[in-house]
């Protein structure tokens, strides 16, 4: 039981990174991307390939940090390659294009023998644990929240609000869309690295389009544009299936139905997600009044 709890906590952490980074693209910048699992896969596989093939004579922690860094770089390069052509599209077209690219990434992995191909990639050392996962969760949240509150973040938000008006304010919209996309993809890559070094085994089927949809669900459930929302959404959607599974045989059989009904009910009652666009900032209560900008 305790082991399961630890497992779920670590999975929640990885999902938080995924949801918060997708929120930067979908919720904060307003660009509908459906390829997040693809970036996650790029990060996971590149970091895993690094630890398996490079075999650096360094302590495993250092190896993990380098792995996370490589995952970030690889996924953000993938984000750049995909973002530059795709971000000229809007709305539904962008969603379809990113969906396609996400699948292409998966198919490429499926057909690359050196990283396991359809057999899966095994033999990855187990070096990530709850401490490292939550360290990177904190780093992700702090970086994205800090970006959001600066002038670059405001520019990114203004694109969601009204792209034409943003353009007429002297904001290079394409540059900021790409920036949000690349940073979001990069953090998904970091999550991938943490995931690979935790599960020790990767299979292309773990990174399908359905996984992108689940990450998107976490973001929408919490509230598009709210970082705290994404955190809560990620935790709920990680725990909910497990909780339903543990609740006896009958409920367990119906768990996908219950899961769907719960989601539909929530979206009917709160169409903007749990938090809407608002944030819950616990630090606010420790600071003096008026200090928070």
């Amino acid at each position: 039981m305790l082991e399961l709890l630890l497992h779920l906590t670590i999975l929640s952490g990885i999902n938080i990174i995924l949801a918060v980074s997708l929120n930067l693209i979908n919720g904060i910048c307003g660009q509908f991307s459906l390829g997040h699992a693809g970036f996650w896969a790029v990060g996971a596989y590149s970091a895993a390939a690094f630890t398996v093939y490079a075999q650096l004579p360094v302590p495993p922690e250092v190896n993990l940090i380098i792995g996370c860094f490589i995952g970030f770089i690889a996924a953000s390069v993938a984000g750049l390659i995909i973002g530059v052509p795709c971000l000229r599209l809007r709305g539904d077209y962008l969603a379809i294009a990113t969906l396609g690219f996400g699948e292409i990434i998966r198919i490429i992995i499926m057909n690359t023998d050196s990283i396991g191909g359809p057999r899966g990639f095994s033999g990855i050392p187990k070096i990530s644990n709850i401490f490292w996962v939550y360290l990177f969760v904190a780093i992700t949240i702090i970086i994205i929240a800090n970006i959001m509150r600066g002038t670059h973040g405001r520019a990114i938000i203004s694109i969601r609000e009204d792209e034409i008006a943003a353009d007429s304010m002297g904001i290079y919209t394409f540059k900021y869309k790409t920036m949000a996309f690349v940073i979001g993809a990069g953090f998904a890559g970091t999550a991938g690295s943490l995931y690979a070094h935790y599960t020790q085994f990767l299979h292309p089927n773990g990174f399908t389009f359905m996984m992108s949809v689940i990450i998107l669900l976490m973001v929408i459930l919490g509230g598009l544009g709210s970082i705290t929302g994404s955190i809560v959404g990620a935790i709920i959607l990680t725990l909910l299936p497990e909780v339903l599974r543990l609740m006896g045989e009958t409920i367990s059989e119906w768990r996908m139905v219950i899961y769907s009904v719960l989601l539909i009910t929530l979206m009917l009652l709160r169409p903007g997600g749990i938090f809407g666009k608002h944030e819950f900032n616990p630090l606010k209560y420790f600071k003096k009044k008026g200090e928070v900008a």
Partner: protein
Amino acid sequence: MSTPILEVKAITMRFGGLTAVDNFNLSINKSDLVGVIGPNGAGKTTIFNMITGIYEPTEGDIHLNGKSISGERPAFITQQGIARTFQNIRLFKDLSVLDNIRLAGHFRADYGLFASIFRTKKYHSEEKRIKEESIEFLKIFGLQDKQELLAKNLPYGEQRRLEIARALATKPDVLLLDEPAAGMNPNETKELTELIRWVRDKFQIAILLIEHDMRLVMDVCEEIYVVDHGELIAQGQPKEIQNDPKVIEAYLGTEQA
């Protein structure tokens, strides 16, 4: 006469077989107040969209302060000194009034992404400067008490005012107003007339406006260009325009023979 701030030289815009604007010329000097009028579909907004870079003219050239800007991106043109408002107000509705103004100072913010991630000294000093400047703008426009409100919660007249304030906060040389009186009642229009005149005197900038409301245009503009079917049919002071037979024809139609 000094060189004009904005000079539009024989621009033409064709959409497929349709010529929306044909060979249009315009020149504005520092602190001129110029109006472009014409019936619906005459091509007024197309002219605006070419000046602000949303469309690239099929033919012709646009010069701002002696530099060609036709074919440049809208954001670049704004940075060079042309700001605009929109016919159907385009505020950042879910952002606060203050943030709307702060965004206008975005391209002058002198710090990078890393400064904002690591909260450097530069970040704090630049953010402070932008905030102070923005509040100054809000004070000028009498919106400082509403800086925390979301833009969408302002009444219509104040949304217009905020949009004009936001455009001015980019510190332009030329301000383009696209039908600022659209959807306003006579009282609000009167206030707007005063606002436009006051903005010109206060900021000493050139203003170009498109308008349907004849009274506003005749009241406020010193020079008027009349377009119909994409062509310039008259140009001059309000008095001359009012009595121009071509203008009357464009608006009211010809007498039946």
